[in-house]
């Protein structure tokens, strides 16, 4: 029965295309900008991790948290970057960074970034190159 209904739907769609031509489909951009996960005046990116668990991470992920490649790219492209333990003492930190740390997440390590208009909140990418690609889309 299910196969019959599927076949019927495909048949009707084909008949419609043959009779009316291809429908006008609204083009979908490759990247759908998400809204900014936290307010900030300047582009900011925060990596969040559990400092007692970094031994479980491959070196390629550790490179984002503590290495030079990603933070150099951030610096050269107008992003401020921080890499914080999820339980860090933040009472003396800037309000915007505090909000970044408070963005909802489901796991660690995590990456949250905002340019004030768009941004993202995602599990930590696999390596520095992937993290750079992620931010590049939100770099003005």
């Amino acid at each position, binding site marked *: 029965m299910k196969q019959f209904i599927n076949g019927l739907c495909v048949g009707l769609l084909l008949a419609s295309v043959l009779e009316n031509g291809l429908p006008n489909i609204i083009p979908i951009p490759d990247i759908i900008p998400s809204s900014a996960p936290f307010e900030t005046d300047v582009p900011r990116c925060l990596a969040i991790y559990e400092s007692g668990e970094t031994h479980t991470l491959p070196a390629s992920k*550790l*490179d984002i948290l503590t290495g*030079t490649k990603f*933070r*150099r790219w951030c*610096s050269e492209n107008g992003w401020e970057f921080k*890499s*914080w*333990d999820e*339980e860090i003492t933040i009472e003396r930190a800037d309000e915007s960074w505090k909000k970044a740390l408070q963005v909802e997440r489901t796991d660690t390590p995590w990456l949250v970034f905002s340019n004030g208009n768009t941004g993202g909140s995602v599990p930590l990418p696999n390596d520095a190159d992937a993290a750079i690609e992620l931010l590049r889309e939100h770099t003005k």
Partner: protein
Amino acid sequence: MSFRSYIPSKMKVIGDHNADVVVRAYAENPEYGRGLDPDCAEPLEGFGTSFNAMIPREEWNERIEEMERKKMRLPDLVDDLKARGEWDGPRVLNQSRTNYCWINSPVHAVMLTRAKQGEKYVPLSPASVGAKIKNFRNVGGWGSEGLKYIREHGIVPHELWPANAIDRRYDNSESDAARKHFKCDEWWLLQPRNLDQMMSCLLQNIPVCIGLNWWSHEVTAVAPARVGENSYGIIFDNSWGEGYGDKGRGLLRDSKMLPDDAVAPRTVTASDWK
């Protein structure tokens, strides 16, 4: 041929073959302060959380090679920040003629951890901690007692308390308020002479303050190195200024790299100090 770590020609390499020469060379020179005093209090026991983040030996070679190739070790980070003008000072501290190596190391480790976290470079004063612990006496101690104080009270920036000033004039309400910005949040107390624990920290870019009885000195282990087929060393930051070794750094190997006291700060207070 299997991978070996790159060791710059200027880097001081200290191992079983030359440690006695090194000790003699520096023992008589007052320009090189030390200050790990075996006669003072023993290293703290039961301070901090026990280490539970071991990286198995079979992963060491691959991780060391990757860290070195990708320039992701702590010395690489400091060099990179310095090249971009974001580490606006010497790469290592200089204890000068004080006996405060034991507190220079934890303070340096906090500065490295701040850099790792992306906090702004702020030069911090070892004397602001050492003098308070030792009641303003210029005497030896252990890194673990230094880190314990930093955990509870923090460190004063250099601008309010000069690095080597064992002087009560700087102990005031302003410096006391400032030190709260520079505390250690989380750390590990490692087992003495435990290479696996120390290497595991370094493979995670966690600096380790190591007290070495044979040298009566405390330095900061900052990176792992592979010096032979299954033979390892540690790159350390000394507290004798950038004129020592390679930009202030050296390499310990063999039994000479095994610490008698070892603490590893993992997280420091986030602070936008102006």
